[in-house]
């Protein structure tokens, strides 16, 4: 059973076609890179998998069931783009990670001992234990991303969706996050990451999808990075020189 199956999905915002008959399958234990220009439908694809956007045609299945069931089971974790988060919000790193446990809590959502332990383990795993009581906005770009990944870990999500986790993140943090995502995949999670950083794609991902409202290529990172494929996704001027993927 695939972790995520997207089957002939078409999404339209008014007159704008955002996704055009997109089909792809993500296996458990794999990291898949999602590559495409701005407006190619990457964020829409994430929203379709979580069920925030309903497709006009086609269907999404998460671990064999409808997205609504996966949501209730806490199967899917979503790491938002930096621009989508209010970094001035008065909430600590620990509190953000605790929201990963939120769905499983009772009427008043009061965390139990096991929830606190799960949060501690998640913070430890991403290396943010020392910064746990800082305000989330007080962290660096890379630490912020790790905090949100920790939320997915605390949630025990089997599918992780990350929207541009490397934007505004320095090289060292990028390496840390990449290592973390590889570990989570090794533990059996399916990880879908949208990225503009084509150079590190082979280090990050087992497979990659080139998206331009529809799936242009779905294959190995090397295949996606072939100049002729990139030219189709990014326009003809980019990446045509030999050995210069982007």
């Amino acid at each position, binding site marked *: 059973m695939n972790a995520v199956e997207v089957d002939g999905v078409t999404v339209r915002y008014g007159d704008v076609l955002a996704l055009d008959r997109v089909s792809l399958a993500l296996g458990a234990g794999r990291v898949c890179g999602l590559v495409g220009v701005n407006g190619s439908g990457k964020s829409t694809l994430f929203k379709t998998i*979580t069920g925030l956007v309903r497709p006009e045609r086609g269907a999404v299945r998460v671990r064999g069931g409808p997205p609504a069931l996966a*949501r209730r*089971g806490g199967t899917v974790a979503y790491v*938002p783009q930096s621009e*989508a988060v209010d970094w001035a919000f*008065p909430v*600590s790193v620990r509190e953000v990670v605790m929201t990963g446990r939120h*769905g499983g809590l009772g009427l*008043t959502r009061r965390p139990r001992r096991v929830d606190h332990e799960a949060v501690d383990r998640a913070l430890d795993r991403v290396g943010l234990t020392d910064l746990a009581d800082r305000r989330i906005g007080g962290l660096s770009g890379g630490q912020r991303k790790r905090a949100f990944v920790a939320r997915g870990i605390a*949630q025990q999500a089997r599918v992780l969706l990350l929207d541009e986790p490397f934007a505004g993140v320095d090289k060292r943090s990028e390496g840390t996050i990449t290592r973390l995502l590889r570990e989570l995949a090794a533990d059996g999670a399916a990880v879908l990451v949208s990225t503009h950083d084509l150079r590190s794609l082979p280090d990050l991902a087992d497979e990659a999808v080139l998206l331009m409202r529809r799936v242009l290529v779905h294959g190995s990172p090397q295949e996606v990075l072939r100049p002729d494929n990139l030219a189709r996704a990014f326009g003809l001027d980019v990446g045509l020189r030999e050995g210069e993927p982007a």
Partner: protein
Amino acid sequence: MSPHELLVVPMGYGFMVRALAATVTAAAVCAVLSCWLVLIGWSLMGDAVSHAVLPGVVLAYVVGVPFALGAAVFGFLAVALIGVVRDTSRVKEDAAIGIVFSTLFALGLVLISVTPSQVDLHHVVFGNLLGVDRADLVQITAIGGAALLVLLLKRRDFTLYAFDPVHAHAIGLNPRLIGAALLGLLALTCVVALQVVGVVLVVAMLIIPGSTAHLLTDRLGRMLVIAPALSVCASVVGLYLSYHLNTASGGMVVLVQGAVFLLAYLFGPRHGVLGRRVAAIRSARTPPPPAG
């Protein structure tokens, strides 16, 4: 003036005791709600709903049902209309809010002018704190207490909704429902505050305490304590001042709230404009730690 004359003598009057109880209730529930309103960016929505409930209150009076019911209906109506105007025309949200709430408010004014004289326009618009009777007080404490209870019991849901509604959705919650609940509580809270400071100044009770608390702390949990504490204190001080200075009570309550905000804005230790300077100067004076 002795402390006894200053603080105890006013409470010899039944109307002052009821006014105090009403003020404290309204200040507390408004302040708790305001923490989420200012963080979500719904301050204008608070303004809109507080004005838009007016026709609901008048109609409820005419029909003979509780004010809260009429207010809730028109509160939701306002929010729905704002959404419709914003989403189905080229009008932007701020303009949609302005159009809807001022039109509904005007409808309320017209309705007051044609209903029998018991609804006093001046009281509805500017509050009638010193005229709160026993029945009013029961209604204020019942609605205010219920709203406060729901806000506090479900505070973690509201906080998650305010911070990251997409995550709330992804883990199986219904962000629309949480948002609608918050707006419903906003409409009920407006009814409570309406009696204290009037339609025009309700928005002050809904925005100032949360904003002040946000200047003083980086934790929402602490905001939820600081905002009502400051708001209740400011309101009680405002009520006493209005008694001794013989000024408009609703206006005085809001004036003191504004003064407290100004103090936090200037002298807040981390986020106040002067507080930041002082901290910077202090750290500059402190000799750097020895190297090594």
